[in-house]
Structures are given as C-alpha cells and as structure tokens.
C-alpha cells in the first residue's frame, strides 16, 4: 500500500487537488502537516490523509516536549537531521518515526552512530525527492551526493528508508513507481526501492494506527476486551 509520507499541502482549500492527484498516481494515502481534528482520516475519494508533525525546534529539551505533545495527535512524527545530539536522541526515541533530510542540504549528514541507533529503534530515514526536481547540472550533483551518502549510511546500518515526494504542489507529486526509479539513483536496488515506497511507509502507518487506538497501553500490551464494571 503506497503512502506518500511528505506532501506539503498549503491549506485546506488546496487539499482536494492533492487528493485527486494522489488517486491518479495510485497512492492509498499521504501525510501532510495540515492541522486536522483526527490523526488520520479517509477523504471522499478514498485516499487516507495522515497528520504529520515536523519537529523543527532546536535543543533536546524542546524536541522532547514537541514530540510528547505531537504523539497523541499525529500519525507521523519527523525530526530533521541537523544538530548531531538532537538527531541521535531522536533516532533512539521510538516515538519518532522519521529522521528526515532537510533542505537546504548544507552541512547535512547522517552519522554512522545515529543510523545504528535509528536501526535499533526502527526509526526510518526519510528522503524527499523534491530537492532533486528543482535543480540541474552541478547543483543537482551536489544534492545527489548528499542524498546518496545518507542512503548508503542508512543501508550499512540497517536503518529503514522511506522515499517521499516532499511536493508543495500536486504536479510535483510522483507515482510510487516513479519514486522507485529515483531510489535507484540514490543507490538502492529495485527491491530496496520498493520497500522504501510501498512497505516501510505502510508499516509506520499501521504501527501508529495501533498506538493511537484507545485500546493500546504500551508496546506489547493492549486491551483485547473490556469487562463489565458492574
């Protein structure tokens, strides 16, 4: 089930156009930072809209607070790669779903140690392809370099990878199959690309759907039946 984990819908009025494009391209859902009443909801055309929170604050304390606050209302929580201490903290925290590669890419890199921590807590590296679309020539080669290095570090550490569009308009969205081809450019094989587009996003969604359920108590503990209080 392909889900685009990063679609930048500017406002609620623009949501329909993105949803229509998602259906045309074959997505079953997409995640957006648009504030919604529910963590995820099915839209009229059958596509599922997931609420996403990008934690763009500095310092571990501020990030901890932001993640705590967002966990109960967001299906997807992403922390951008930046300060290494924050990235390592986020990689270790199982409440964080994605470590994303931010744009501009200056000074962005994924450390081996961060990738290993992320692999252990099943936090995925999110690579949005949007920076590759707006540039060409030498500038594109610089973007490709950073993204390929991050991908290779994640692969070596066994960290899951998620490929998303990062689109800010419907026409910059790409189909799941198209995203798989970009994965090849980043150094993934076809199987790895498919996993990054079809399997990993869906796994994150299913995991968090369970977590957001009122019957969820903690990892491995959930209420299967409620007794009669009388």
């Amino acid at each position, binding site marked *: 089930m392909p889900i685009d984990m990063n679609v930048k819908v500017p406002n609620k009025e623009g949501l329909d156009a993105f949803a229509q494009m998602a259906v*045309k391209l074959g997505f079953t859902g997409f995640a957006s930072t648009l504030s919604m009443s529910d963590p995820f909801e099915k839209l009229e055309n059958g596509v599922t809209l997931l609420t996403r929170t990008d934690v763009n604050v500095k310092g571990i304390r501020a990030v901890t607070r932001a993640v705590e606050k967002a966990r109960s209302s967001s299906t997807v929580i992403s922390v951008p790669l930046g300060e290494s201490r924050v990235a390592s903290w986020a990689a270790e925290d199982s409440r964080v779903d994605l470590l994303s590669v931010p744009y501009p890419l200056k000074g962005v890199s994924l450390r081996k140690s961060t990738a290993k921590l992320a692999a252990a807590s099943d936090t995925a590296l999110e690579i949005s392809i949007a920076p590759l679309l707006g540039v060409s020539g030498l500038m594109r080669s610089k973007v490709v370099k950073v993204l390929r290095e991050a991908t290779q570090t994640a692969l070596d550490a066994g960290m899951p990878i998620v490929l998303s569009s990062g689109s800010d*308009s419907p026409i910059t969205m*790409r189909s799941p199959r*198209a995203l798989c*081809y970009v994965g090849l450019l980043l150094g993934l094989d*076809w199987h790895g690309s498919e996993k990054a587009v079809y399997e990993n996003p869906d796994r994150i969604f299913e995991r968090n759907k369970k977590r957001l359920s009122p019957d969820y108590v903690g990892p491995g503990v959930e209420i299967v039946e409620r007794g009669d209080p009388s």
Partner: protein
Amino acid sequence: MKSRRKRYVRFRLHMDGPPVSDKQLASAVRMSLLSIYGEVEVADSRFFLNEYDESGGLGILQCNAASLDNLMTSAVLLSSIDGTRVSFEPKRTSGTIRALKKRAT
C-alpha cells in the same frame, strides 16, 4: 553479435500548462538523460517515442533494456518542459509492444 534487447514502457505525462508535443517530450527526456548519465548513455539507450497522445499525455516509448532504469529515472526527474510543469508516470513495462497493448485493453 549480442542481440540488443528492447523494452517498451507505457507512460502518462501529467501536465500543468499548455500541452507538450512529442518532439518536446523526446528532447527533454534525452537532455535529462544526458545531464544525469552522460553522452554514452544517451547513445546506448536507443530511446524512441513510439506513440504519444498530446492531449491526454498517454504514450509508449521504447529503449534498450540495459538503459531502462536510467532512462526512467531521467524522465521522472523532469519537472517542466518548455514552461509546462510535468510529472512523468511510468505505468507498465514489457518486452514487446504487442504485449503492452494487449494488457492495456
């Protein structure tokens, strides 16, 4: 001599703006392939646009099997063609054009 295996790809070009002609599309794909993978890859790809409907954006292209991945990546990374914003969607790949058309019906 080793025979060159071909691949046929059915695709859709989503457009936001004036329609893109077959010549414009073919040229843009070649330029993108040239920019990312170089002159030898453009030469080896043997890329050709078999069919293309300007209004709907549906079409079939053919290329050398070994160059398929690079060609598709180059096409997917196209963001605009002569002012029209585009999104290239590869739909199905086949070894023969007949099989591709058969599956479409």
